[in-house]
């Protein structure tokens, strides 16, 4: 009886088991149909999946090269940065996110919240580009296992440790890390390197799947530029220039130091300047251009040296030729005047006196040849140097000249030139008449610091004979060291050759008295020049006190004084 019951119970169990198994079969069939539906037939899911681009080729940034001064001081370098993005669709609490992240990335909380709300339908939006690694680490602490709503894209940030120094020369880069101005622009290709390529996989939301198994091409880091700039000198010169601009209330200024033997530019200071680390908003403003190459000014008296050298070369003039200045001379229907009659003068005297009448006399003898020499001194055409924003200057051709043009051209009016063109011309005279190609880059180096390309000093052309060059050097030296010479430029213990210049600016086709460009170009030691220095101040005030000798020469002197005690000078 008991056993029978037991068997009966066991039979019931078996029937129930089979019955349950039957229900499980139904459940399985249901599950399989649901799986097929989701996987293959659900139109909305299909739409989401088609929107996803699972594979894309992504470029990997190559490390941009550095910009260095001649001694290896870093002027510009790229550091690792990270761009913070967020998925607005999945971010459930933007206010919380903003309050946590805002203070770290220095963006007002409300701005972040607005950004997220404005992009609430998107899956990916940058919150802030190019933040530092430590900022990233601070933010990463907020990432909890269930909150995968933000991430970081690798990026680079350009840093300029010298901030305002040589800013317009160096230039800056855009958010895409390519150069916008200065050396950053002209040498962009060399600096940039070759980006790598990688296949990345994306989630449907556009999030990059962060494993990088499929590297197609490794990135090739960019080359570094070893410039000819001497940062120490640059820094000092900029300080001096700044001081004098302030003293003269000038709108700007330029100072360039060049090695005449090699054409290397040791210093290129331009004012006003800006902090490169926030450079992008300054580079389109003409005030902040590199005045050494962009200031297209009428050279005025500093051009007289070039005319004098041409005349010596042509035999129109010798150092001993005496010219008589009566105070004024009439050419066609125009009158050229000197402030006082200078009387009988030799070459050194007319340069010292900057005697217009004397130069008119030379000019009337030189005629069209003046233009030929201007061309040989590379005026009116761009110098073969890769530098950003270079102006060519304007030198009218003799066909367009009037009779008066022969006169005005001889003392540097009616043509324009850039400071770099002027200093290169003086450098040629200082270098025995041989014009060296101006150099701003000495070397390209790869990312390991090995030189890839070394730029040697190159001769552009011989302009005048060494005899002429010697005579002009002597004349310029004598004009400075003469008892009534430009004593403002004289530094004890160094023989200096140089020329002042004061040119009125042209506004609406007329010369205006109260806006002048005052310049001084000089080299030293006069007998065996090692350095040429050009200094120009734009619109120093009060203009009636502003002359090359009073404004620019003292700046030159301060620079030379510093160089005398800090740089190697061979007497």
């Amino acid at each position: 009886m008991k056993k029978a019951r037991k068997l009966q119970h066991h039979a019931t169990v078996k029937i129930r088991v089979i019955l349950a198994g039957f229900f499980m079969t139904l459940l399985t069939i249901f599950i399989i149909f649901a799986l097929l539906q989701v996987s293959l037939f659900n139109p909305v899911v299909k739409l989401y999946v088609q929107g996803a681009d699972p594979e894309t080729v992504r470029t990997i940034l190559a490390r941009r090269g550095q910009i260095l001064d001649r001694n290896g001081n870093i002027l510009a370098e790229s550091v690792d940065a990270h761009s913070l993005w967020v998925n607005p669709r999945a971010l459930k609490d933007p206010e919380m996110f903003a309050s946590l992240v805002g203070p770290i990335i220095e963006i007002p909380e409300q701005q972040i919240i607005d950004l997220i709300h404005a992009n609430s339908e998107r899956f990916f939006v940058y919150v802030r580009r190019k933040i530092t690694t430590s900022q990233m680490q601070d933010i990463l602490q907020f990432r909890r296992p269930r909150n995968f709503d933000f991430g970081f894209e690798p990026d680079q940030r350009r840093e300029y440790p010298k901030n305002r120094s040589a800013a317009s020369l160096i230039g800056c880069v855009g958010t895409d890390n390519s150069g916008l101005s200065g050396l950053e622009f002209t040498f962009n290709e060399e600096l940039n390197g070759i980006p790598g390529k990688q296949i990345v996989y994306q989630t449907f939301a556009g999030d990059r799947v962060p494993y990088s198994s499929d590297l197609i091409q490794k990135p090739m880091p960019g080359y570094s530029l070893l410039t000819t700039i001497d940062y120490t000198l640059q820094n000092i010169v900029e300080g001096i220039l700044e001081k004098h601009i302030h003293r003269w209330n000038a709108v700007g200024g330029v100072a360039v130091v060049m090695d005449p033997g090699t054409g290397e530019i040791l210093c290129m200071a331009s004012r006003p300047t800006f902090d490169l680390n926030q450079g992008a908003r300054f580079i389109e403003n003409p005030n902040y251009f590199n005045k050494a190459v962009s200031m297209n000014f009428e050279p005025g008296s500093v051009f007289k040296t070039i005319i004098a050298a041409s005349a010596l070369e042509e035999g129109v003039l010798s150092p001993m030729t005496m010219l008589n200045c009566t105070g004024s001379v009439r050419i066609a229907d125009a009158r050229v005047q000197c402030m006082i009659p200078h009387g009988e003068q030799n070459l050194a005297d007319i340069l010292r006196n900057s005697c217009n009448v004397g130069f008119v006399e030379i000019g009337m003898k030189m005629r069209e040849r003046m233009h030929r020499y201007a061309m040989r001194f590379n005026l009116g055409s761009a110098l073969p140097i890769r530098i950003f924003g270079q102006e060519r200057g304007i030198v009218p051709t003799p066909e367009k000249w009037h009779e008066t043009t022969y006169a005005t051209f001889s003392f540097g009016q009616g043509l324009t030139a850039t400071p770099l063109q002027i200093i290169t011309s003086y450098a040629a005279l200082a270098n025995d008449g041989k014009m060296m190609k101006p150099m701003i880059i000495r070397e390209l180096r790869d990312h390991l610091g090995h030189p890839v390309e070394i730029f040697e000093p190159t001769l552009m052309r011989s302009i005048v004979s060494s005899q002429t060059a010697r005579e002009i050097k002597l004349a310029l030296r004598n004009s400075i060291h003469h008892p009534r010479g430009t004593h403002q430029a004289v530094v004890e213990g160094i023989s200096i050759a140089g020329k002042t210049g004061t040119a009125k600016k042209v506004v609406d086709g007329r010369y205006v008295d109260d806006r002048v460009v005052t310049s001084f170009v000089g080299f030293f030691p006069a007998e065996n020049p090692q350095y040429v220095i050009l200094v120009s101040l734009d619109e120093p005030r009060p203009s009636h006190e502003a002359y090359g000798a009073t404004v620019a020469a003292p700046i030159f002197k301060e620079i030379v004084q510093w160089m005398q005690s800090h740089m190697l000078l061979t007497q």
Partner: protein
Amino acid sequence: MTKKKGISIHDLLFWLIIFLTIFGLLMSLSTTATSYFTIGSVLPFREFTKQALFAFIGILLMIFMSRIPMRFWKKMALPFFLLSCFLLVVVLIPPFYVEGIYNEAGEAARRWLRAGFFSFQPSELAKLGLILMVSYIMSLFKGRMKLGDFFKILLWILVPVFLIYVAPDFSTAAFLLFLGMLAMAIGGTPVKYFVLTLVPVLIGGLVVLSRSDRLMGRIISYQNVFQDPANSGYQVLQSFIAIARGGWFGQGLNRGSQKFYSLPEAQTDFVFAVICEEFGLLVSFFVIFAFCMLLFLALKVSIKSKDSFSSILSAMIGFHLFLQAMLHIAVTLGIAPPTGIPLPFISIGGTALVVYLAEVGILLRLAKKAEANP
């Protein structure tokens, strides 16, 4: 009698489970290596190593269990059940549970027991304890059950269910209750008793649901996947996308991308979606087939068994693992609310894996016994 040719149920079951475990390890490698990116873990293989270690221990335990005679379990059913209930009580006491675990309604849940260098979920043990207990009790009745007995057994079942419910862990509590009642049903409880209790249980269930607004909202809104893809429907939508991206043949092992940022808890609650994305429909069907096979073999053992206890127990072990798998798949398909049910043998979770393997060990013993003299 001559022995049947071909592979025995025992061996088939054994290799099926070995296969599932190894496949699970493969998936855990695929889903947890992402932790380096998603949570910034510095040891991307830590989870996998842990899982592999537990799998090894679990398989050893399974083999060991398959050698323990059934009379041991008959004796141990009640003590084992009481032990698992005791652990469920312990896990509620502050110093013993792991903090920072949240249930499906977003409330702090007391699920994990701290045990020295590792932690484990007593609720996993409670499932086995309950199955053993109810199977044993039901086998005692031999066809005569009064209504009072029915309620007594139901009360026994409700002890662990209640303890898990207050943890709070609603889905596991509900699953446990269902398992217990299924065991009762298989054990021969008269159908009329069920009809008698079904109405109050349904009412009780509704009361429980309405008690938690967030839970209610969860259950209502999971169907509105496409209405609210950014919030309540987010997980399920991500799961859908993973499944659809897989197509028939999948993206390839470790080529899935949903597991990275989009699909939360890819290594546990949504591992089936990752299988779909990386291996495609064909392999997914095979995984479903494997669990059907497990159930089929378990039911075969159940029918071949000579006594009620073995029949109920083997069927219940099969039902437990099969149903849990189906529930997990149903969650990834948006049929059931996302409640955090792991896929047996495949989802990450060391202690759970060990318990499942031990459970299969008992089933293996039953299989051997059932096949011994047909």
